[in-house]
């Protein structure tokens, strides 16, 4: 008896392969279940929000409540304002990180100077340090400088999170570029600044897109800094979502779910829009061309 010849892409059905497939399915179900549960919960009415049934009369009311003035009066959470705050804080942090981080990454990728590696490591160490470790001194400093509960303050603290990310990702992009390209530009008669702006920068655009997106998501999802360093004016989405659970008052699980899903939308939409760059970007930096 001869073994059946398999076409490309066909798989032999063995107990092992079936088990592997089942395991994968199980993993997907396990990891997607919380999201599915959130979606169901966000569609449940106030009466049904504590039930665990999969059968209920779905309503979009929670979404409109969360975004409306009525919802703000009911729960004392200004979710629309928080959305705007998050956009400003995360967007601002990314902008600051790019403005300072791109030249920094270029310098770090191109030139070795005394202490350059130490400087890079120092930058990375911001990422090692637990946020809770620095939050108390930051709280005191922010109160004294008047940065507490301000958007500027949020931009400033969130760029601590995003800057190392941008610098470290982009540095590897710049290192992957052949230095001969900029050298050729120098000999063509361009200054170092123009060689950087006109030759190096356009070539790392995918890297800028990828790092900017990752930085935005990190800034957007940050919870500890806005929790401690804002009160009501500059509150971000992450903190606002948790407030629907009610500190001591009534807990709105359905509103929390709706708000959380709404809060996850902006980074998701952003990621999908620049996905084209992202896929190219993330692989470009990893593999030497």
């Amino acid at each position, binding site marked *: 008896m001869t073994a059946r010849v398999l076409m490309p892409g066909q798989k032999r059905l063995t107990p092992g392969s079936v088990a592997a497939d089942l395991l994968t399915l199980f993993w997907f179900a396990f990891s997607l279940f919380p999201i599915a549960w959130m979606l169901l919960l966000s569609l449940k009415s106030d009466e049904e929000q504590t039930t665990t049934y999969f059968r209920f009369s779905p309503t979009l009311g929670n979404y409109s409540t969360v975004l409306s003035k009525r919802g703000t009066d009911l729960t004392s959470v200004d979710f629309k304002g928080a959305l705007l705050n998050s956009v400003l804080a995360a967007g601002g942090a990314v902008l600051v990180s790019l403005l300072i981080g791109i030249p920094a990454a270029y310098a770090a990728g191109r030139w070795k100077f005394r202490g350059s590696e130490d400087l890079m490591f120092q930058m990375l160490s911001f990422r090692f340090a637990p946020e809770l470790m620095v939050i108390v001194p930051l709280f005191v400093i922010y109160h004294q400088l008047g940065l507490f509960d301000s958007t500027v303050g949020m931009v400033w603290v969130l760029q601590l999170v995003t800057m190392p990310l941008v610098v470290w990702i982009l540095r590897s992009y710049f290192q992957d570029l052949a230095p001969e390209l900029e*050298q050729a530009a120098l*000999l063509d008669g361009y200054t170092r600044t123009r060689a950087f702006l006109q030759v190096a920068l356009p070539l790392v655009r995918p890297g800028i897109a990828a790092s900017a997106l990752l930085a935005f998501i990190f800034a957007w999802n940050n919870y500890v800094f806005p929790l401690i360093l804002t009160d009501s004016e500059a509150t971000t989405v992450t903190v606002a979502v948790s407030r629907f659970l009610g500190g001591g008052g009534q807990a709105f699980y359905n509103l929390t779910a709706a708000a959380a899903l709404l809060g996850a939308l902006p980074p998701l939409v952003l990621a999908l829009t620049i996905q084209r760059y992202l896929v190219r970007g993330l692989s470009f930096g990893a593999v030497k061309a």
Partner: protein
Amino acid sequence: MATLELHDVTKTYGKVQALTDLSLALGDGEFFVLLGPSGAGKTTTLKSVAGLQEIDSGRVTIGGTDMTGVEPYHRNVAMAFESYALYPQKTVFDNLASPLRSGRTGTYDADEQRRRIDLVTTTLGINHLLQRFPRELSNGQRQRVALGRVLVRPADIYLLDEPLSHLDAKLRAAMRAELKQLGQMSNTTTFYVTHDYQEALALGDRIGVLREGRLVQVGTPLEVWSRPVDSFVAKALGQPEINMIDARVSDGRIRAGDGRIAVPIPAGVDVAAVTRSGSGCGPGISSWPAPAVAARTGWRCRAPSGLPNGWAGWSSSTYGSATWT
């Protein structure tokens, strides 16, 4: 168009000594070829001239002006990189226009740019590639575009780093012939780097042989070919390699090859004798400049009176610094 001088240029990368006291002077309009194996410091020399890297000590002078420490864009030199270094995001046309648009090599309006580019691309046979991107070119085409980016602009010195190395053998031979014919090349001081001795012999007005960051010999192709100062230079040129045979002096003659070779010489010291294959015992050096096609002729001569043409003999005491192995 300008002279180029290097005075005691020294460069180290960490602990590696890339260039050691390199001194060299190129005349106005000269075509100078630097020949050496990989790692000898050829590219380092070019980059030192271009100002793309700082040198540890020494001076670089272009047209009589000290250019040491001057930024590359102020040196008015053009360079073709071994890795082509074409801008990936620009078309061939825009790559070639790049030096014309910087404003530092002169002012060119759009028509003048197109005229110059057209001239160069016609010469190099890349007219049909203008709208392509570098990634859509073969290595040979890329190399010609890189060469075009050098030729398209006026410059004091052209620096060419192995500009033919990635071409296939046939194209390389054709380009080698063409390169010498190019008008600009014959007018502009050209510093050409290669590891291919045939290129060096065919193109160079003079050749410099580089070994581990030191200039071993400088001379016309004929001088370097027939009077190499040491075995490194002798072996660097020629394929098959030069014959080197231990010989001994007795009775006023060099004797080697079981006595079948006997060359009269003042008695007294051990001698290394070299001959170019193909030169045999005939008058003159018949095989130059195409030694690659000459067959290895061996030692068929018998007791010539005096050193025949194409032969060279040195005593090790005379050339104390030279190494014969």
